[in-house]
């Protein structure tokens, strides 16, 4: 298991834009460097990327939830 952590404070989004599909869903396979969400701060949008390959086990933060630096955003079962 590996945690994906937000290094920034802000609002977490699971979609690239309103009305679009989620970047990834629980159960999906992810590659190293794949985007799993976005954090918005100061009108800037920074991608949150997986640093391991595996399967998405769960999201710890809801879409549009507030995150702080160090918060776990998602948990990955490593491949």
């Amino acid at each position, binding site marked *: 298991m590996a945690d994906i952590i937000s290094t920034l*404070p802000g609002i977490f989004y699971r979609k690239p834009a309103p009305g679009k599909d989620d970047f990834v869903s629980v159960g999906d396979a992810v590659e190293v460097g794949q985007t799993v969400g976005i954090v918005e*701060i100061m*009108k800037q949008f920074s991608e949150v990327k997986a640093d391991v390959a595996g399967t998405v086990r769960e999201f710890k933060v809801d879409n549009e939830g507030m995150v702080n630096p160090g918060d776990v955003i998602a948990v990955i079962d490593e491949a």
Partner: protein
Amino acid sequence: MSIEVLTPGLSTTVQDQGRFGYYNVGLPQGGSLDAYSSQAANMLVANTVDEAVLECAYMGSNLSFDAESVIAVTGAEVSITINGESAPMWETLTVPSGGTVEFGMMTQGARFYIAVHGGIDVPVVLGSRSTYPLGRLGGFDGRKLEAGDVLPVGPATADLNAVPQKSVPVEARPEFSKQQELRVLMGLYDFRLTDKGKRNLVEEEWSLTPVADRAGLRYKGPGVEWREREQPFGAGSDPSNIVDAGYSVGSIQIPGGTQPIILHRDAVSGGGYAMVGTVISADMDVVARATPGTVTRFVEVTMDEALAARKVYKEALASLWA
């Protein structure tokens, strides 16, 4: 001597203590948002108060130094490594020639400062080296830093042995809290609020949203109510609109009556929103330290209390250099 930017961070800009004298033509004063931390960094590297430093918002810039350099890092809590070795904040540090300085996550606060002996030697524009990105003016090419930028460092001007203090004592370091009280002088347009509207502003809790940068910081909370009025000639139709007027740094507007915005040092100098109050100058550094979600109370003070607080703040700045 120069510094190369390896990774830029989120929004790192060159700042000094500000560009004064042009507010009347719409150019904001700018300058380090947390002036106290910025001055502490300059003090630790034997600069004067006027040298330019780097301000990193929410994420640090990793830097490479082409010659031995004396630096200091102050402000929001962040981990530092010099060539992979952990180094402390709020102290005079030496980076060897060719050395790399890297930063971890910011665990408290929103902005930290990197000072280097000699200062960041970008051209002085209208009396200041501060970056004003909206006007593409000052700083490094008028913008935030990007990877590959090479920042010139000014010549050593002072005896490093003459640094007043090689570290800032713990009790002189600011607090970085998720709970803040900001002192506010009410006016000029607080008469536009109903009694309940005013009570909501100064008695309820507000929370900082992620819409918070050098121009302004937006809070959410219980909202306010405006008094009924006849729309004046020249004012917009929203109850929070006024006939255009000058804005002071720290003034609070509440467009639509829902989310108050505190204008900070890069904000516009005037416009058509009612300023219901102004955060006192002594607390503007505190505003600069807030991260999203910070629970905030606006505490009403008198002009005499605001002036007394400004005196205390100025004494704290002076004691850094004593």
